[in-house]
């Protein structure tokens, strides 16, 4: 068994001020403030839509998922707990889960055919990335990803952007079952420690 490592303490997520603003908007939305929710949408929709689109691929489906995602955010804003992570992290968790649910329930022959293209997608150079968000943050993330092994990047990419289960990832990469989940975890831990996120 791999022992659990303790989570580094101290520095919270980068971009603390923006994060606090999002948390404040969520807080107001939880009380039914639609104007605050509109501001929240403006501040976060590019990252959420970009992620959802990358996972589901079809723009019209991505739009449907985004509607579900923001509805869920609106309904459950009061459940956001700032002690557990950043507001953006929480929003992306909801967005990712919905996107993955969508591709899993709509699994199709076509999707399976695209599996091998997916596999070869580079994780770090996305032509669809909006220039406005190709920020210092994205540069830091790219640099941090360089610290991962190629095998870890590949496994994380298939899981996170491909929406595949670790078992499917293992099969796609010809790995023994159980290896992919370890790569995903080790890679995320390295990313976390390089970026200094988390509690």
């Amino acid at each position, binding site marked *: 068994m791999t022992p*659990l490592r303790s*989570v580094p303490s101290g520095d919270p997520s980068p971009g603390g001020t923006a994060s606090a603003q999002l948390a404040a908007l969520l807080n107001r939305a939880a009380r039914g403030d639609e104007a605050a929710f509109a501001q929240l949408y403006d501040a976060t929709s590019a990252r959420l839509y970009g992620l959802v689109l990358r996972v589901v691929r079809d723009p019209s489906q991505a739009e449907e998922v985004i509607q579900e995602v923001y509805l869920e955010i609106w309904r459950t804003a009061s459940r956001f707990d700032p002690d557990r992570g950043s507001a953006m992290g929480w929003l992306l968790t909801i967005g990712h889960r919905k996107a993955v649910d969508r591709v899993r329930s709509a699994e199709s022959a076509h999707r399976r055919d695209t599996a091998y293209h997916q596999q070869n997608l580079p994780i770090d150079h996305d032509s669809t990335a909006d220039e406005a968000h190709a920020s210092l943050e994205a540069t830091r993330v790219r640099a941090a990803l360089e610290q991962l092994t190629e095998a870890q990047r590949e496994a994380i990419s298939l899981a996170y952007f491909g929406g595949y289960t670790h078992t499917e990832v293992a099969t796609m990469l010809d790995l023994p079952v159980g290896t992919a989940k370890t790569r*995903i975890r080790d890679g995320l831990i390295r990313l976390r420690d390089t970026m200094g996120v988390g509690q």
Partner: protein
Amino acid sequence: MTDIHALSGAYAVDALGDAERAQFEAHLVDCPACRAEVDSLRESAGLLADMSSTEPPAHLRGQVLASIHNVRPLPPQTPVAEEVSSPPARRRRWLPALAAAAAILTVIGVGVAVTQPWQDDSSQVEMTAAERVLNAPDARDVTLTFPDGAQATVTHSPREGRAVIVTADMPPAPDDKVYELWLIKPEGTTVPAGLMPKKADQTFLLEGDASDATAAAITVEPAGGSEQPTSEPIAVFDFTEQT
């Protein structure tokens, strides 16, 4: 034993199948270290989204804002959860305590309302049927303990023709999912036996005739349940191995 902690990364990026997800969420209830790790790994995974940022089509904004208008935000979660996550000592005492209470109540004929004051009338009737099974002379138990410490006992009485499940510290099924119960017949057919109410500690009478059932099982199903299991069982209670 497979190390359930190692699933934290795959869980953080939604890369677990339904059954594993339910199992891991069950584990999370009792493992603060894994909860902290999942939180931090989700945070790091979220950073990856920075690289695929894409402006959504302009019309989407209006649709989203229109759709929330008639929806009421949920209230904050109040700390009811404390109530259901009993410490291990209490968990172990729970079954005998219920049995003792049931025995006394049967004698004085008060019914179960004393121990389950929140139950409505219809479930009192069910509790009584459940107690008949629990107290049946031919009743036999199969107890399973999940990796996170949750326990489920199925008591089967061929004479009563019914089976009862008693759970302790059972974590909730994932969002949009339910725990569905099944009875396995001697010829191997699987018969739906009801959806478990979303409660950590409960006594639930399985639906249907269990007189010749050889096993009971629990699967994770989409909300509303299924006619036949759509996933691997998270628990199988084999009546032929009863002690």
